Structures are given as structure tokens and as C-alpha cells.
């Protein structure tokens, strides 16, 4: 356990405007010792650029609108093409099980659904940092 000063970018992507989950997880990760960059709404390209500039270990995408199958794969592709594949991507929010499976196949490390305890997310991120 323990965050060991890991850095994480928390962002929402596209027009999705429900920030409750994003801010709650961002504050909780900060309280657990993570260095958190809270970005608000960004485009997929903006997320990748910010993540590289801020030299984060993780990108956490909070998604409620259902746009994840369109917006998350370009983030993964762009990280690879910019040699930033060591940045781990995780997703939280409303993601149907089949989509979660597909996102994980494409390289998302984990998808955290509604009701998932914050502590379990903190523990998960504290322990695993998998480059792909």
C-alpha cells in the first residue's frame, strides 16, 4: 500500500459535465498521498498532452455520458505513438460490462464502476502500475 508520491491526472473527456465522481476521487487520492492534477474537461489530445507535460504515472478518466468507447481508445493510441506507454490509464464511471472488457483488452488497466469503494481504488492504484 501507499501511494509513494505517484502522480495521477484526473480528467473528464468530451462534453460530459458530471464532475461529482471526478472531484470526489481526485480529493480522495490526494488525501491518500497521491499527487493529483485535476484537469476538468479536456479532449483526448488535451489529456495526452497534459499527462506527458505533468509527467504523471496514471491517467484517470471519469466518464458518465457513455462516450468512453469513442474517447478512450484514441488516448491509448496517442500515448503509444508518443512513446508514453508507461502512463497507465484507468477509467471510472458508468461503463457497461462488455465495454469494460473491451477497454481492458485495448490497454486500460482497470475500470471502476459505480459503488466501487474509494479505498479499494486507492489500494489498487497504490499497488499496481503496469506499463503496456
Amino acid at each position: 500500500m501507499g501511494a509513494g508520491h505517484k502522480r495521477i491526472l484526473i480528467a473528464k473527456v468530451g462534453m460530459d459535465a458530471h464532475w461529482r465522481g471526478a472531484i470526489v476521487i481526485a480529493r480522495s487520492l490526494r488525501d491518500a498521498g497521491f499527487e493529483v492534477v485535476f484537469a476538468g474537461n479536456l479532449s483526448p489530445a488535451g489529456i495526452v498532452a497534459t499527462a506527458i507535460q505533468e509527467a504523471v504515472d496514471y491517467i484517470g478518466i471519469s466518464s458518465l455520458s457513455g462516450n468512453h468507447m469513442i474517447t478512450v481508445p484514441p488516448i491509448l493510441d496517442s500515448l503509444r505513438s508518443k512513446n508514453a506507454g508507461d502512463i497507465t490509464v484507468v477509467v471510472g464511471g458508468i461503463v457497461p460490462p462488455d465495454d469494460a472488457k473491451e477497454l481492458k483488452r485495448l490497454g486500460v488497466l482497470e475500470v471502476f464502476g459505480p459503488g466501487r469503494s474509494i479505498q479499494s481504488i486507492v489500494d489498487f492504484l497504490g499497488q499496481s502500475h503496469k506499463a503496456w
Partner: protein
Amino acid sequence: MLQKTSGVGKLSKKASWINKCYPFQMERKSRFSTLSGIPVQPVYTDEDLDGLDYAKDLGYPGEAPFTRGVHPTMYRGRLWTMRQLAGFGPPEETNKRYKLLLAQGATGINGVFDYPTLRGFNSDHPEAQADAGRGGVAIDSLEDMMILFDGIPIDDVSVSLVTCQPVGTVPVLAMYLAQAEKRNISFEKLAGTTQNDFLMETAVTIGWNILPPRYSFKLSCDVIEYCVKHVPRWNPISIAGYNYREAGANAVQELGLCLAHGIACVEELLSRGMAVDDFAPRISFFLNSHNDFFEEIAKFRAARKLWCEIMTERFGARDPRSQKFRFHVQTAGSALTAQQPLNNITRAAYHALAAVLGGAQSVHIDGYDEALCTPTETSALIALRTQQVLQHETNVTCTVDPLGGSYFVENLTHEMGRRVTDYIAKIESMGGLVESASKGWVHDEIADSAVQYQKAVESGEMLVVGVNCHTLEDQPVEIFAQPETLNRQKAKLGELRKRRDQAAVQTALGTIREACRRMDNVMPSVIEAAKSWVTEGEIAEVFRQEWGCWDPPLRL
């Protein structure tokens, strides 16, 4: 608090009884309180109503201060409107869902729009494409609006347009009005509501490229001013406490922000030279019904009393309609769980019962799959049937304000009123709601409460069935399949751009720009633009260009 003061050294009857029967160790918890943190006592008696004056604090239904209800007959005269939210994909698909709900007994339309429409972007805008048709229906032009309401008797059924922020409200309402005009339905016949809440844009659901609070608020007041003068049966604003709550606010904050918002609107419209009784009857509200059953009922009752006091004492409103807090309720989406989703049917039914015992004018019940996806046809129908069971089978509609006079509910209503009044005073001491939002205070308030709520769930202090107790392995449920939207919208936009009169489009946009620069009411020019087939994104882009975008103070 309403409470009898007892003589020094002498306990009241209730205090003696508590001392005798309620030693600390006999209770399950060290502290009982409402969700917003109001302490709840073991029992309430007539001692807790000391100081309550029936005529001054409650009154008869339909009479000031309207604590017991805004109409003398309430549900004996007319049942609440069953206004089930619907909207997804392209307008052709949502039109079918509207017709299904009306055919199954819904008594009003409650149309929700997709993220790009709410934020004033066309479906084919590069940043918007991923969200086209998500969370609501995509509307890009008057053509889409005509498809959306094709065959819907809008001169007979009231239509709520859940447009959230003013930047989307202005063009969407303009297209709705233009659509009515094309059908030769006069504006006088149109009954309905637009949400039109500047906090939605600037604090509660912040998106990409948003207008500064001052301008977003200006647009919302333009809509109110225009409708009061030209669309007399329209509720041009529905102050969205529901969404403040969903973002994290507690019940006190929800109502406090709502009423402070109402005050801000009244002040702005007065400053535009209007008389209070000319516009105040058209201001309406939208509240949440969450888990804490009695606190929610107390909130609804306190809301009516406080609004009446504000309107009469502060603004000198004479027309009883100006004094009436009329509200729509939606059951709390944030209280629903993705785990064991069928349990949400039960939750939403309790939420709706609280709304009805609190005297709501219209109600939406959430679909059980809300924490997973847009409601499927099955879940939308069950939600409507839950309303119908409540209306026809429970008999809760037989008498007005059935909980009036309950020691507990009256005490809680009073305490809620006291706390909300303090909260409003705090907002006013910072210069009012627009200023509080500009500074980020509203954002902090809501975010702090959201974090606190989550901590209570995490610690197990707040039990959520299926989440932190009584858990089961996840079971598969039917997930709503989003209909193809982007390509259909792109095709229509492409055709529209080719066939419309380009010079008329440019002239219409120029007129809107002029209105923005002069800070005139933009509505007349936007309605003209809608009729010239100017798209939603083009209209909103003028606002963004003229007034700039704002970096919201949403902080960690």
C-alpha cells in the same frame, strides 16, 4: 428550534421521559440525524411545536404562507403531472419514446437533450461528436425540433424542455417557438417549462467552453423576460435544485441555493423595469427527492413557506401566484445503485412518495437502470407504472398535506426553514448568488458535501444496500443500446447547410451579435435566426465569441 423553554433546574415532561427511558446504551447509534445533519430526537411531542402559529406558519392549502400546499384542493382536484424524462439519440427516436409514454398514460412531456445541445454545439462539432445523442436527444436546427414534436399535441400537453444551461436554452426554446409558429399554434397556447439555470452551466455541471456566470445569468433572465411578455403560460425558468443535489449538495444547500437563485432573478428583472407581479408567477422550481424521507418532505413544505415570505416581505408581491413555490420533483439518481439494480424500483418509489406527501406539482420517477445506462423501454414503463400505482392505489391523494401537524414533520419543517434562511443570508453577505458562483464558493460547497457523503458510505456510517451491505455477485441486466445518431445528424446538417439562404443566415447572426453587444434581450433575434435555419451551434458560438469563455474555479 420550536421547543418549550423550561424553568431553570426543572426538566420538561419530554426531557424527563427521555432521561428515564433513553439511556445512551439502549440506542443503536450514538447519533441520529437527517442526511443534512439535523439532529433527530427519539420522540416529538407538543413541546416541540411550542411557538407554532397555525395561521402564520401553516395556513390553509392555497393560502399564504402555502406551507400545506399551493392549491386549495391539491390532488383531490388534480393529480400531479406524471412527467417522465425521455430523450436519446436523434429526434426521430425520441419522438417515438414520447408517443409511447403518452400512449401509456403520461400526462406531460419531459424532454432531455444531449450534451452537445445543452452546451450549444452542433452534433458534428469535433469536440462534440463523441457525445452526440448521449444523455438526451440531439437538436441541431429547427428541422430537428419539428421532427421531435411531430404529431405531439403541444397545444394540449404541457412540455418541459430540460435545457439545463441558458446557452442551450436560448436556441432550443427559440426553435421550439418557431416550430409552434410553423404549426400555426399561437404562443398563448403553449404550456411548459425550460430549465434555464445559470448554475448548471457554471457550477453544477461544468463542461467545455462555458460562459462566465454574469452572461449565463443574463441569458436566463432574457428568456424569463421574453416569455413573460410573449408566452404567458410558459415557465421560463425551473431553478434546478435537483441538479445541485445530484452534484453533491445536501437538502439545506439545495433549497438555500434555489431560493438565493430565485432572489437573484427577481432582483435582475426588477432592475429591468418589470413589476414583480408581472413575472414572479412564472418562476418555477425543480427539486430532488432523496433518501431521507421526512427531511425531504420537510424541505418541500419549508420551501413553500420561505418563498412566500421572501416574495411578500422582501419584494412586496401582492398576486398570490407570485408567492407560490411551484415545483417539479425528480427522484434522486445519485441514490440509485448499479449493484442489484432492481432494488432501485423500491428506492424510487419511496422517493416519489416523499415528493407527493410534500405536495409536488409534477413528478418524474427514475428508471431502475439509471446507474447503468439510459432507461430501456422496460425500465421507463415501470417508472411510469410506479407513478400510476401511487396515484390510483395508495389513497395518499385523498387529503391535502397529510403529514401537516405531525410533531416531527412540523418541527423538522421549521428547522429546515431556519437553516435555509441562514444559508441564504450567507450567500447574500458575499454579494448574492452570481457573485458566490463567480468566486467558486458554490463549487466548494457542493464538492465538500459530495466528499463528505462518499466518506459516510466508505466508513459504513451510511449503509447502502447492495453496495456496502447485503452484497451479491453482479447479475447481467439489459443495457440500453444507443441508436445511431452522429451520422444521421451529420447528414441532416449537411443538407440543411446546402439548401438554406446563406445571406439570411449571416444577417440573422449579425442581429444576434448586435443584441449581445448592446446587452439587449437576445430572444427575438434568436427566434428569427431559428426560422432562417441557423443551427444551434452557430447561435451559441456568437455568445461565446462576444462574451468569452470562463475558466471555472472547480478546485481540488
